[in-house]
């Protein structure tokens, strides 16, 4: 296991990058703790796979330095870095048995056969495939194959980190839950440093202790699922995480009064961004109250998704989504009010003000996780 330090890493696929646009990865400068579970979350093309491949050594960065536990590995090959990686599509050695698949990385490294046998059996137990050890690997289901890919990493006791590149893409939905919770258990029991790339926020938020949100070649925020939800540092994070995403609207500020269209909203604290070209107010649909008081809106659409309703409203020219509890009535003369706790102010898309810091739902039990689609804390390993 290792701490991963990313020192001013930049990467461009083409030669001679000139402007920022030529970089697939603009500048990443972070330190990831030993034994941490990190998820790289972002839309396609945001650079998350590039970053993962830089860590695994499949790509060497154009600039910057990569350290594993303080040791410079920037120019080392994939083998020398001693990492494990699970790919989007299960990679297994078709002609080998499950046992031989797991033994393969050890045999390649010349580990004595007795030691191999011990490690492989131990790993088969861990990934729950002990009864399949003698079967040919090609006959297995996709999720079992994916477990073998994982097992080939786990079998090496000295791996620095285990990397996952959207590993659940080809897995059936009902098995995704099972695999994800098994992954989490493995992480809790053995403390591997894990980095998990995904574009699925549920996957990222359930898997990781820290979620790294990437956008356009940059890391825009690293935080716990709760931080990402409550205090998105960038409007992209607000929009990308949550379902539906954060309402973001242009705003004018004077002291602690924010003006949206013709309506004035008082802020809990004055925000004074200096020299910003674009000012915005962001509020999650969970913090918009629909009732008879506040700003008058028209209702465009009501989506009933079972647990709650998403009400799409229009405030003058601004679309605002509101989440309303299943039992609550929608008034005939609808008005909305913003809960001051949920207001964030953004200058040029970056967060400059809002209510900070606070906890919305009190303390949470260790191991519990925040589900973005129902916006609630769930107990460890449970589904909805």
């Amino acid at each position: 296991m290792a701490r991963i330090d990313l020192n001013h890493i930049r990467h461009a696929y083409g030669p001679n990058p000139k402007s920022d646009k030529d970089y697939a990865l603009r500048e990443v400068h972070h330190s990831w703790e030993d034994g941490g579970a990190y998820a790289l979350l972002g839309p396609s093309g945001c650079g998350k796979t590039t970053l993962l491949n830089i860590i695994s050594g499949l790509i060497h960065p154009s600039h910057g330095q990569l350290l594993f536990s303080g040791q410079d590995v920037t120019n080392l090959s994939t083998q020398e870095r001693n990492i494990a990686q699970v790919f989007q599509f299960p990679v297994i050695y078709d002609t080998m048995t499950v046992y031989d698949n797991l033994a393969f990385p050890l045999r390649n490294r010349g580990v004595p056969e007795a030691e191999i046998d011990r490690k492989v059996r131990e790993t088969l137990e861990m990934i729950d495939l002990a009864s399949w050890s003698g079967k040919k690997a090609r006959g297995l289901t996709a999720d079992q194959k994916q477990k073998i890919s994982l097992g080939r990493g786990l079998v090496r006791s000295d791996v620095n980190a285990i990397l996952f590149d959207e590993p659940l893409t080809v897995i059936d939905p009902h098995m995704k839950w099972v695999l994800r919770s098994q992954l989490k258990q493995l992480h809790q029991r053995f403390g591997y440093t894990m980095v998990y790339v995904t574009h699925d926020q549920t996957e990222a938020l359930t898997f990781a202790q820290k979620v790294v949100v990437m956008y356009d070649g940059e890391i825009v925020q690293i935080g716990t699922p709760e931080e990402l939800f409550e205090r998105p540092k960038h409007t992209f994070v607000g929009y990308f995480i949550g379902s539906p995403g954060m309402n973001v609207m242009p705003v004018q500020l004077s002291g602690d009064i924010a003006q949206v269209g013709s309506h004035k909203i008082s802020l809990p604290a004055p925000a004074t961004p200096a020299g910003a070209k674009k000012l915005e107010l962001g509020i999650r649909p969970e913090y918009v109250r629909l009732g008879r008081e506040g700003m008058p809106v028209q209702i465009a659409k009501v989506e009933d998704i079972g647990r709650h309703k998403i009400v799409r409203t229009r405030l003058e020219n601004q679309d605002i989504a509101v989440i309303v509890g299943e039992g609550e009535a929608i008034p005939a003369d609808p008005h909305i009010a913003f809960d001051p706790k949920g207001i964030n102010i953004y200058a040029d898309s970056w967060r400059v003000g809002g209510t900070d810091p606070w906890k919305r739902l009190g303390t949470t039990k260790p191991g519990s996780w925040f589900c973005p689609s129902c916006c609630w804390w769930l107990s460890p390993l449970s589904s909805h």
Partner: protein
Amino acid sequence: MVLPVLLLVAFSAVIPLMTVVNYSVQDTFGNNQFFWAGTEWFTEILQSERFHSALIRNLVFSLIILAIEVPLGIIIALNMPRKGLGVPVCLVLMALPLLIPWNVVGTIWQVFGRVDIGLLGHTLESLGINYNYVQNPMHAWFTVILMDVWHWTSLVVLLCYAGLVSIPDAFYQAAKIDGASRWAVFRYIQLPKMNRVLLIAVLLRFMDSFMIYTEPFVVTGGGPGNSTTFLSIDLVKVAIGQFDLGPAAAMSIVYFLIILLLSWVFYTVMTNYDAER
């Protein structure tokens, strides 16, 4: 609705085949006079040393061809570029020999091997080798095999290449991470993925080389002596050269049964392999 198909099959296969069967059990001296011969020709063919040696020559030829073309095809396919301008260039170069009519291939090599004007013959001669495919059986075999390798290795290459490019990058990356050697990558990733196309390649090459006629006929005419007289060449010699229609018919039926048997063996191997998957 079945009638057109029946007619088509009857005229293209059944009637000619029956004619051959008919000839194979009769003797003729021309003038449309036929005498019943029974299984005489079959006994004669199966016991004739001439047929045996042609069959053995043919099998040896096919085995040598396979032993050279399959590994060579794999090696070339492994070393072909996967992307960039090299891909179309290589593919076109590879496909070129396959597009040339067989008798032209024969003519090319017939000229190529000549000592007086051929590049190959002349070069070998100036290297001090007394190369003469018209008189030396070894040289004749060398020329015919070299010609077949030149003509058909591309087919194996193209099939293998198609198998190789279907392997996702992740497999190679995973192999790197697992610390696999170049040989292990070939043995456990590339070879299993090429398995099916290789079977097809072996089948095609075996069948084709077992039926080879045009190219050696043009280059050596089956000689010197009978050293490159393969089954098909021998058959034509008997049927048209000697006008022994009976023995020739019996011989083609035996030849046909051998090919049928070998095809069945290959087919069974391939379908079993599929079922196992």
